[in-house]
């Protein structure tokens, strides 16, 4: 991984850091079946757009939204799927 000015998209490997703050195991090996096109994929294989203003992870087959992550100074927001209703998690490791 490395920094690019205008990446097309990254992949779900980039979710390991942000989601690692709230999951006790590495989440990027989690598997899903896309409800829109039925393509199976691990989280690491999702196409991830961002990182700003948030990470939008999409099915690599049909681009349906799998999840979105917004990291803020005190909170991490996780939205699963494309509908409304995000989970907000307190971030336990904030030291500053």
């Amino acid at each position, binding site marked *: 991984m490395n920094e690019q000015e205008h990446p097309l998209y990254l992949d779900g490997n980039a979710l390991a850091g942000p989601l690692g703050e709230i999951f006790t195991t590495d989440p990027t090996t989690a598997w899903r079946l896309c409800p829109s096109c039925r393509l199976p994929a691990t989280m690491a294989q999702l196409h991830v757009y*961002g990182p700003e203003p*948030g990470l939008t992870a999409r099915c690599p087959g049909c681009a349906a939204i799998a999840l*979105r992550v917004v990291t803020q100074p005190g909170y991490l*927001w996780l939205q699963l799927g494309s509908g409304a209703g*995000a989970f907000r998690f307190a971030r336990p490791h904030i030291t500053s």
Partner: protein
Amino acid sequence: MGSLSPGFHGKTHAFEGRLPPGQYPTESFPVLSAGPTPHIPTDRWSFTVTTEVGESRTWTWDEMMALPQEEPTVDIHCVTRWSKFDTTWRGVSLDVLLDEVETAADFVVAESFDGYTTNLPLEDVTDGKAWLAHFFDGFALSPDHGGPARLVIPHLYFWKSAKWVKGLILTPENEPGFWESAGYHDYGDPWREQRYWSD
């Protein structure tokens, strides 16, 4: 604790008067994306305003281009902390489009061809504060930046200026959009630094 990453300044530098808090000026025009870039040919483009009772008015590309055009020069502010000064646009004031429908709604949801949405108070897109823009810096607006047409609402953070916009839906209630439902501020005033939900 000693200092971390000495000499790292990020891109936060002071700029007199025109720079909202926490912003840095940029000459470039960063592209932020939440998905694949849609490519909408103008002959398949249309723009629809739908009222809270389900009445609608639709413009084709040619009809929109035949409306009175304005050329605003404005400063824009992205929630990711860049600001860009004196950007020049060409497009139709949303007043012209909204004058064509009857509404008692207080809010509006802008909807894009890629499924993106963002919510705004109606009074923030009327009285000369917002445009449907199709020309930027002397050229037809590129797909990267939201072409063929996007909203330009310079007094709010730029995520409110929906790219690839296809219509406005007037709503009696405020309905959070794509980023507003995932932690970003409902209103997004850069001068009050309303970045996040709780700001």
